[in-house]
């Protein structure tokens, strides 16, 4: 029994090793071709597919072929960072409200309502984004923002149809906020009652207890939860694919601009990348997948170290 289950346990490292090894092996030629320019230049082009292949950087490629993913890096980081910012504000606010104001009896059911956000499939968020959120924002909210455009940078017109950076970030916010609320709620509920009582007895208002006593010690927890949530936002595919506007090679100029993210780009481009007879396009997608894999490993390691626990599975 010990031996059988130990052998089974080896499956976990094995699966990860196979995936990593495969991606490294498969992306190797693209890594050689792209070099550091992959991360520092902008523009994804499979070149002239009707010409004869030529040798470039020791690899057979099409004339004009170039893979630089700056637009994906910017889109991915900008949408995830905005989402994380919103998720912190909403998540901390909602959790304090649920643990400190709402009567204890209701805390769990109402928390479940927020944490149900994590159970909704990504593609349903995408559907909601297409059917409701993007048109709604473009019609009623973004015009208000655009009025501020004269003063605040990145807010000016044109607004577009609602598919872009901010819409993606808002949907991502909803998807990652349960990580923050679930982890913070458990941390707050674990705080001994004496601490609260002591603060109240010193004459603090309830709000001061919450912000100056309860939240004070949660820096580490919040950063850990935030990194975990960030990791998920960086790797999210379907919802972003559906509401991001799927920009190709263009950098966002304002918060309404179409973007694309690394994960969404893989899903969007795999089909057409296969048409490339040198195989470099598909292999460059493997390089993106490898970057995503590395990011997900880093964010997980960091959040695990900070939270001193495994991340929650079903928040």
């Amino acid at each position, binding site marked *: 029994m010990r031996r059988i289950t130990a052998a089974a346990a080896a499956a976990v490292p094995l699966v990860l090793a196979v995936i990593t090894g495969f*991606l490294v092996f498969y992306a190797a030629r693209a890594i050689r071709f792209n070099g550091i320019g992959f991360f520092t230049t902008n523009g994804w082009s499979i070149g002239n597919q009707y010409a004869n292949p030529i040798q470039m950087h020791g690899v057979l490629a099409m004339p004009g072929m170039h893979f630089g993913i700056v637009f994906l890096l910017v889109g991915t980081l900008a949408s995830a960072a905005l989402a994380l910012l919103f998720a912190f504000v909403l998540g901390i606010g909602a959790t304090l409200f649920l643990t400190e104001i709402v009567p204890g009896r209701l805390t769990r059911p109402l928390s479940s309502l927020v944490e*149900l956000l994590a159970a909704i499939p990504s593609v349903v968020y995408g559907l*909601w984004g297409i059917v409701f959120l993007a048109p709604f924002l473009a019609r009623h909210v973004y015009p208000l923002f655009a009025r501020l455009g004269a003063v605040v940078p990145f807010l000016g017109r044109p607004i577009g149809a609602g598919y872009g950076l901010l819409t993606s970030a808002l949907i991502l916010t909803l998807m990652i906020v349960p990580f923050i609320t679930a982890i913070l709620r458990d941390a707050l509920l674990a705080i001994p009652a004496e601490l609260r009582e002591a603060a109240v007895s010193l004459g603090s208002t309830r709000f001061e207890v919450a912000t100056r006593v309860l939240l004070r010690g949660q820096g580490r927890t919040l950063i850990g939860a935030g990194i975990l949530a960030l990791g998920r936002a960086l790797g999210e595919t379907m919802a972003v694919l559906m509401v991001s506007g799927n920009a190709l090679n263009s950098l966002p100029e304002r918060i309404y601009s179409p973007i694309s993210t690394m994960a969404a780009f893989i899903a969007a481009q795999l089909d057409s990348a296969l048409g490339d007879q040198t195989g470099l396009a598909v292999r460059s997608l493997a390089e993106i997948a490898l970057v995503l894999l590395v990011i997900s490993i880093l964010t997980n390691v960091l959040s695990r170290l900070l939270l001193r626990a495994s991340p929650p599975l079903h928040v």
Partner: protein
Amino acid sequence: MSEIRRRTLPRSRILRRRLTAAVGWSVAAAAFGVLALAMLHILGLTFLRGLSALGPGIFTRNTEGMAGGLRNAVVGTLVLSGGALLLVAPLGMAVGVYLSEFGRGRFATSVRFLSDVLVGVPSIVLGYFGYIALVIDLGWRFSLAAGAITLAILMLPYVVRTTEQALRRVPTALREAAYALGGNDRQVVLRILMRAAAPGILTGLLLALTLATGETAPLLYTAGWSNYVWHGRLTHQPVAYLTYVIWSFIGEPFRSAHRLAYAAAFLIVVFILLINGGARLILARVFGPDR
């Protein structure tokens, strides 16, 4: 006679503190309101549009281009996630048993750690891997095998962790009693511990199942799409699934396509809510309201 001077805070300061509290709590309440409203709106939209899209033929007809029913997709989703569950359940439970009962030292620690890492790997990365490795290199084409194996990888860490946690909740005394009666590892694990932990393990399997039914990215390039009901081939036959209908049909300019997308979203969400609710009930029944 000395005058007793009561020191009080200046009125303005008290007012300021009260005002801060009022504003702060309003913001907090608004934050909760926004999240709850968004959740309810998503559910409301899915239910209202989904219910009105359900009609005769949804379960009896296949998709015909952008119209028809969802029979092929419903069957495909069940076969894909069911198949993935069959693949992952024995393996994942075995790993969970190892981590909870036998795993000490560096190997167990690293398995636990890597299992957490696997949870965080973006599903499109798994989908890409499945596509290149299984669909192209092994030549399986878009198929049930490629889709189910990719989903199984995705589910593995969930089954591992929930099994481990469920087993850890079994009191040590039970193990001691079982071993004291002369039980060997196999008997203790299979006859005593797995039985005692069954509700928790089952819950974990169910949650992994909901995860699989809601996924799209790992299936896009492994299961493919088909207008026909899956008829029994493991490889070289694409399989339809519900999330594909949502993703693909909502972008089409036809009312019939939208209707199918809403119906598919409704079915997926209802399935997930039912299983989630059921799983929570099992957990609450067995382990008390505090999970």
